[in-house]
């Protein structure tokens, strides 16, 4: 009974591009505490809704469905939109519950992948390189990151059509592969962080011990033990503090700011 419908209301490449474009600009534009990205999802689906459902009641119904709570990583969320469009194109209004379930089921796992790769690993790698060069006034690292962001933008655009054509198949087939890619990316990130500790934290102990005629510089004693001992110790202390129940990132920043001012003011540490 659907064959007549699918012929007249087919989703074209242009529709996919339009949804992609809308998702890019609108997914978080009306982000709010009540339903988070619901409005963005609705805005993305509006052309599809008006195309697929000529009846007013159906339109209202589907607009309501797509204005329900939704939250995922904006970079990878297009994949869900693509799958949704494929299903609604085939099944129409009957698929109402299916797509609602699909959205709820996939938004979490996709957010996990997107947040880890796009939200943490890429900024770790390129932010580290860029900041390392930037501290010396060299903009090349920053430009490198800029270039990567353009590549990401380009890649992002392939996800919605991929969701449309591949759909569920892909989620199951590549689940294990994605985990391995994520793990490998984390490995790379951790390696870079290891190198970051001694290179970007600039702190010295300017203290000088005086025993009669002999004076000993505290920093050179520490250096003989291990280079960058102070930065490593500071990272270890902060890491440990973050494990405390009442500690969070904002408090830690305030704490380190105050500690830096006090220790620097007293001349115990210096840049």
């Amino acid at each position, binding site marked *: 009974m659907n064959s007549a419908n699918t012929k007249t209301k087919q989703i074209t490449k242009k529709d996919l591009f339009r949804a992609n474009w809308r998702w890019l600009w609108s997914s978080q534009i009306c982000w709010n505490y009540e339903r988070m990205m619901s409005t963005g999802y609705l805005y993305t689906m509006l052309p599809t809704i008006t195309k697929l459902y000529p009846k007013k009641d159906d339109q209202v119904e589907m607009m309501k469905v797509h204005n329900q709570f939704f939250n995922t990583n904006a970079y990878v969320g297009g994949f869900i939109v693509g799958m949704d469009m494929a299903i609604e194109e085939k099944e129409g209004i009957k698929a109402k519950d299916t797509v609602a379930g699909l959205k709820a089921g996939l938004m979490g796992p996709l957010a996990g992948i997107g947040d880890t790769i796009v939200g943490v690993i890429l900024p770790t790698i390129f932010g580290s390189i860029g900041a390392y060069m930037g501290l010396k006034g060299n903009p090349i690292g920053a430009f490198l990151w800029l270039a990567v962001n353009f590549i990401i933008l380009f890649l992002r655009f392939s996800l919605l059509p991929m969701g449309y054509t591949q759909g569920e198949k892909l989620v199951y087939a590549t689940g294990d592969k994605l985990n391995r890619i994520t793990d490998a990316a984390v490995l790379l990130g951790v390696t870079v962080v*290891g190198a970051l500790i001694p290179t970007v934290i600039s702190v010295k102990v300017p203290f000088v011990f005086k025993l009669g005629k002999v004076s000993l510089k505290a920093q050179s004693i520490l250096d003989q033990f291990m280079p*960058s001992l102070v930065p490593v110790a500071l990272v270890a202390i902060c890491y440990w503090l973050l494990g405390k129940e009442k500690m969070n990132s904002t408090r830690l920043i305030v704490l380190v700011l105050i500690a830096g001012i006090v220790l620097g003011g007293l001349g115990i540490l210096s840049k």
Partner: protein
Amino acid sequence: MAIAWWQILLLTALAFWMIIDQITVGILCNYPLLIGLVAGIIMGDMSKGLVVGATLQLMVLGVGTYGGSSMPDFMTGAIVGTAYAVITGKGTNFAIGLAVPVGLLMVQLDVLARFINTYFLHRVDKYIEADDVPKVARNVVYGVFPWGLSRAIPVFIMLIVGNQFVQKIVEVMPQWLSNGLSTAGGILPVVGIAILLRFLPTKRFIAYLIIGFLAATYLKVPMLGVALMGLAMAIIFYHQSGNSSHNQGNNQENKPKETENELGEYEN
């Protein structure tokens, strides 16, 4: 150096675009480094902007906005910090000392913007009932204004007021405080690194953390070199884990689960 009116306008526009960029295309403004660079170019001193941006960048390495949580807004901090660094000529560490509190205070405005958008959500609900598609669309787009203005207005005010005010502060600031601020600027990246290590499954990959550290300290490998080394190890890891993927399940348990805090600055 005093700030020119066109610089104030450009930086205000940058602040507006910055948050929109963050929630849409994500090219320029996801993180403080690139913002600092652009703010530096506007202020006519690119390298100062880079240094301010880079230092703030390192602080936020592990801080992300997941699940709609607010994070300290060091992008705004980078704009204001860069402007103050150039205006006062007091060096970047002084500016970072000012940028950090700015970033922390800006969290409140982020919350406000996300809250105001709820109003537009309810208007959208209303127009759905009326099946008024153009008005539904328009009200979604209105969300741009709470977002953009929540950054642009404070930056504008801080630049207008800061022009004279910050100069005064600099004049009366004692030497020990400048030393302290400078030291604080030097060690603040520690926070970002520690948060990042908490977020990542560091215990599982601790060997690679040590390898990265050794390469940078004892072998003096530059950062890009370390990244390439990491890439090589990542490729090896990927291929080897493919052969024994059935063992992977056990390893997952080592990942830290307590990455969310009560204020929700970062969560998994």
